[in-house]
């Protein structure tokens, strides 16, 4: 470190952020190629397959959208918590518990009028996810429990509750060897965006119907909830008093308390919101994509959401952007998983590498590196020698 110094930039570089992300992604993909090579695959070819499969097909977009829905919802919630400096890593567990809440409603109120079923289940999912997150918030605010560990433990516990139910009382006896729940009634299923049968009946030609079917794939109307949630969060953070309080308390909790902001209330509220969004994400995935409760509802979206929230630096539009990018990469990994016979864990590996490289790369955005002794260039204030 001798001979060099870091100087904090007063204003971020205009295109620096893009350059940092581009470099970080390139480095990450290079490392992935190396990892593929280690296992005896063609590294560069594998990464090319990953990108082509993830982004380069007509059917990629529907799949990206499908995966983006839960990731975006979870990530919004996580970002709200992170803005308040509350390290909620529990979106995964809240997602699972929300799914269970929704399924509980579906299984226990079969006689409800059809128009009430979906709102009821979604509310139950959001409420249960919210309560699960609220539990960690309560433990943090009342007893000062470390929320990183408590939310993580609640993730593991949530998944075990799912296993308990799916291998126990919620198991469908009709499904022979599989531990799955019974299929939902049609009223509880969120429809796909493109329903070919419907449009064919209404005089759309087969070719057009086919094209849209390929394009939208399995993407479902849950995308509306993303748009709604995104707009609401944006409004919350930019225009409302509450959003102002979150930002203020996040940057300085003590000052916020002095200013009369109830920090406890904020933390519990924000955690509840995150849990509700994650729960909504979970049940929508369950209802639209699987149409019944299955153990493989647990996809690790909750952890991807943490990565996305951080890459986006907690900004909502960027969350949308990075959600799409990571959803595409996840789909790409699924593609090469089948082609190259590699483990599903490759997706997490890739996400971890991206997060690490971007985190390291931020240095070049936040600081200016110059030789010691030379006068600092414009755009930077006087710096102090780094610690060594």
């Amino acid at each position, binding site marked *: *470190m001798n001979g060099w*110094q*870091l*100087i*904090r930039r007063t204003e971020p570089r205009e295109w620096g952020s893009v350059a940092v992300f581009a470099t970080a992604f390139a480095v990450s993909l290079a490392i992935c190629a190396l*990892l593929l090579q*280690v*296992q005896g695959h063609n590294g560069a070819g594998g990464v090319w397959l990953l990108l082509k499969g993830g982004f380069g097909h007509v059917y990629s977009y529907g799949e990206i959208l499908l995966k983006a829905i839960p990731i975006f919802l979870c990530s919004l919630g996580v970002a709200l918590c992170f803005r308040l400096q509350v*390290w909620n*890593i529990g979106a995964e567990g809240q997602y699972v518990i929300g799914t269970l809440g929704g399924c509980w409603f579906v299984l226990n109120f079969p006689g409800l009028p059809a128009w009430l079923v979906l709102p009821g289940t979604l509310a139950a999912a959001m409420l249960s996810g919210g309560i699960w997150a609220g539990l960690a918030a309560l*433990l943090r605010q009342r*007893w*000062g*429990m*470390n929320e*990183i*560990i*408590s939310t*993580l*433990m*609640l993730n*593991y*516990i949530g998944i*075990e*509750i799912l*296993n*308990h139910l799916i*291998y*126990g009382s919620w198991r469908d006896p009709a499904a022979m060897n599989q531990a799955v729940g019974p299929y939902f009634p049609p009223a509880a299923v969120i429809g796909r965006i493109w329903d070919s049968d419907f449009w064919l009946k209404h005089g759309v030609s087969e070719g057009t119907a086919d094209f849209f079917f390929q394009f939208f794939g399995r993407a479902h109307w849950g995308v509306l909830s993303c748009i709604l949630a995104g707009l609401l969060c944006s409004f919350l953070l930019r225009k409302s008093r509450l959003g102002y309080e979150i930002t203020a308390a996040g940057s300085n909790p003590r000052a916020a308390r002095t200013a009369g902001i109830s920090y406890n209330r904020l933390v519990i509220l924000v955690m509840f919101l995150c849990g509700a969004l994650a729960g909504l994400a979970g049940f929508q995935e369950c209802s639209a994509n699987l149409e019944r409760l299955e153990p493989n509802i647990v996809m690790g979206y909750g*952890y991807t959401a*943490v*990565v996305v929230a*951080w890459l986006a630096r907690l900004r909502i539009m960027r969350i949308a952007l990075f959600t799409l990018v990571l959803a595409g990469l996840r789909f790409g990994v699924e593609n090469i998983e089948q082609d190259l016979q*590699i*483990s599903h*864990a*490759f*997706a*997490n*590996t*890739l*996400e*971890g*590498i991206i*997060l*690490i490289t971007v*985190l*390291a*790369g*931020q*240095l070049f955005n*936040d*600081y200016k590196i110059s030789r010691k002794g030379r006068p600092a260039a414009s755009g930077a204030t006087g*710096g*102090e020698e*780094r*610690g*060594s």
Partner: protein
Amino acid sequence: MEVEKTFIELLLPYILALAPALAAAVSTGTPILFATLGELVTERGGVLNLGVEGMMMVGSLAAFVICYHTGSPWFGLLCGGAAAMAMSALHGLVCMVFQGSQVVSGLALTIFGVGVANYLGTPYIQQKAEGFTTFSIPLLSSIPLLGRVFFQQDAMVYLSYLLPFLLWFLLRRTRFGLALRASGENPEAVRAAGISPFKMRWASILLGGFLVGLGGAYLALAFMRMWADNLVAGRGWIAVALVIFAFWRPGRAVLGVYLFAGVTAYLFRVQALGVPIPSSIMAMLPYVMTLLVLFVSSLRGKGSGAPADLGNNFKVGD
């Protein structure tokens, strides 16, 4: 009289279950002990490393693969420690050099470590490795009841008995330990004393990482003796929680680990005796126990005993 006798008879198997539970606690506790002590050293130096889970995964895979191919558990152990140390060096690089957030870097390390170990370990799933063999220590192992529990184990367990004393000595009785602890409390003071807190933190990161890796290696080479997906299964996070429970002191860490492992092992024994506890409840037990551990330690007040400068990067160029 009749009733009392049957009462004792009823209770007797549960009391007798304590001894095998204690033995099981030693083998389940040892990997967590190594990881807890490793994280403790790192945090004492002022660096929060939440990547323990990922580091343990990478450490256990490295240890397993090396032992599988060379047949030497000791070489495997060394490589396991080195691999986790390399991971912690990555954390050090991101936080100390690139000024990244310690929380996020640690989480990234866990996501990456768990992912890459599962990915690279796929061909080894269900494969078995030689691992460590147990041997009894003469004299000590003939102590009634406890002798067989504590002194008929493998070399790693014996090492884990020594380690807390070594760390206590290192942290409390050497100049190096003083400087390391001071870097966690007040790095400016360390700098004023003419020692580089930057180097001390690096030392705490690397030493801690190596110990965490030994914990992972123990899991693969002595506890499981085979490779499985997600081998570590949350033990890294348990270690992070136990550091808080231990108030950052090696002695209390030992207490916490064996208490944690003992209660868990005892409940498994009780279940084996026919008490109807659903297996999924047993599966969530370690995580519920971790929450309890955290709860108990938080009753003592928030962050009591935590190094004052824990989790902060050195201020640069502000």
